């Protein structure tokens, strides 16, 4: 991770020395979101944000925080079921976008008879299987390699809180994301969370008060872009409040 941030705007050309230098020359450079390659050698940005690189993976991408979620393969998402068609559920990831499909059998040990019956507007935690430009994205609630749910599936109860896409990435990227508010809260509170890359955080604390406290703490960390210290303060305040 770069220490000093390079903030780029669309149309900026990335200088070669800003790109990661891989130890292994055979490993091709991977371009993440917000970068495009104009042959032969030029790499330019397409969205505004901070340039991030990972020399281990030999990858570069743009960190950005606003805008609408666009599905990409292997993202974890929280989807809302809109209706059920013959073989699949139609779900939405963000409002006003075309639906994605969730096959009826894409649940752990689901058969025609045992598949979960989801009501309209129910929530599911799922992973994006395919998201190409030209077909409707598909999502699933099982890990195709193990056939197990791996934590995916219908979300019962709880509440969803909208969070920024940057926050969703932070929450999902473990230590690197620098989010410790949930750990802090979990010392005194018991709750479940699910994070969707589509800017949704599902929290179930068993009761309204706990759920709300957790959800709103994360939202505060998000909107105020709080670092470690700030988060500890939030945790203290929330725990004292309960």
């Amino acid at each position, binding site marked *: 991770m770069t220490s000093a941030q390079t903030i780029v705007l669309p149309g900026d050309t990335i200088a070669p020395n800003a790109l990661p230098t891989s130890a292994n020359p055979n490993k091709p450079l991977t371009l993440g979101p917000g970068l495009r390659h104009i042959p032969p050698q030029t790499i330019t940005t397409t969205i505004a944000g901070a340039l991030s690189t990972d020399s281990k993976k030999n990858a570069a991408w743009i960190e950005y925080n606003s805008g609408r979620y666009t599905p990409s393969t292997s993202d974890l998402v929280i989807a809302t079921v809109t209706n059920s068609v013959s073989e699949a559920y139609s779900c939405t990831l963000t409002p*006003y976008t075309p639906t994605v499909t969730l096959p009826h059998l894409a649940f752990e040990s689901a058969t025609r008879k045992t598949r979960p019956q989801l009501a309209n507007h129910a929530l599911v935690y799922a992973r994006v299987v395919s998201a190409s430009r030209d077909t409707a994205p598909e999502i699933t609630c099982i890990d195709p390699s193990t056939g197990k749910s791996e934590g995916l599936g219908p979300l019962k109860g709880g509440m*969803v809180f909208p969070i920024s896409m940057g926050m969703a990435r932070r929450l999902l990227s473990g230590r690197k994301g620098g989010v410790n508010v949930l750990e802090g809260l979990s010392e005194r509170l018991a709750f479940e969370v699910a994070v969707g890359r589509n800017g949704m955080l599902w929290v179930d604390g068993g009761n*309204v008060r706990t759920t709300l406290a957790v959800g709103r703490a994360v939202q505060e960390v998000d909107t105020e872009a709080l670092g470690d210290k700030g988060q500890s303060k939030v945790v203290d305040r929330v725990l004292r409040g309960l």
Partner: protein
Amino acid sequence: MPRAAEISVNEREFILQGLKENIRLDGRPFDAFRSLELNFGDEHGVADVQLGKTRVIARVSAEVTAPFVDRKFDGIFNISTEFSPMASPAFEIGRPTEAENILSRILEKAIRRSGALDTESLCIIAGLKCFSLRADLHVLDHDGGLIDASCIAVIAALQHFRRPDVAVEGENATIFSIREREPIPLSILHHPICVTFSYYNAGGIMLVDANLAEEQVREGEVVITMNRHGEVCQIAKYGGVSVDALALLNCTSVALEKVKDITKFIQRRLEEDAKKRDVGGLIAELSAENAR
């Protein structure tokens, strides 16, 4: 067409459960408005209202036209509410939704029909010339409570607006530009404010100023428009859950309290703005003189 976003089962149940336990999502008491902000633009007659995450701008403008033939002694006043896709992609220009129609009707009844503006004072020469006033409402951000926020914006903008001064000699009217003569505030007879009450749990729970999520799960609502003198200008309960008459009467007294607070708030913001302007006005005058 883009479908409107519908709230998930989990959210619906959570919100209702919360209300049963006396908790609102944002921690407000049941009878509290969200934080209200009111800012005025550089020009006269522009009010920018933020009610929580809901944001509307009202802009009042005037032009000189001939009055309606059947209302020779009255000026013209119109409120225009056209939603743009800015607040929600579901809004389509030129195709009013039901919500837009209702907003427009309620503002019409609350402000225009209740005679908040003295339209006779907009007359310049009877039957020949009058001011035609229009209030344009722009919805920028929609997180519920659109009617209440819009009404505040229009009322504040009307109070903030200054129309050009006129001098009438017989059949001739001279309209002075802002530079020539200090423009004149409108003659406003009373200040109607809308308060929307939402009902839940078969009418057993009543919320003031529901946000969008709360609006989506409510069972019915009543919009009460009052002024601080205790006059009800308009009541609109278009169906929904049935409510006891006493509960509705109770709403009017809660509304009166809220209306008094909001009216006072608008007044305070207007005074602050006037003070700010006065300083600016002096400087402007000086610099104008320098320019000459």
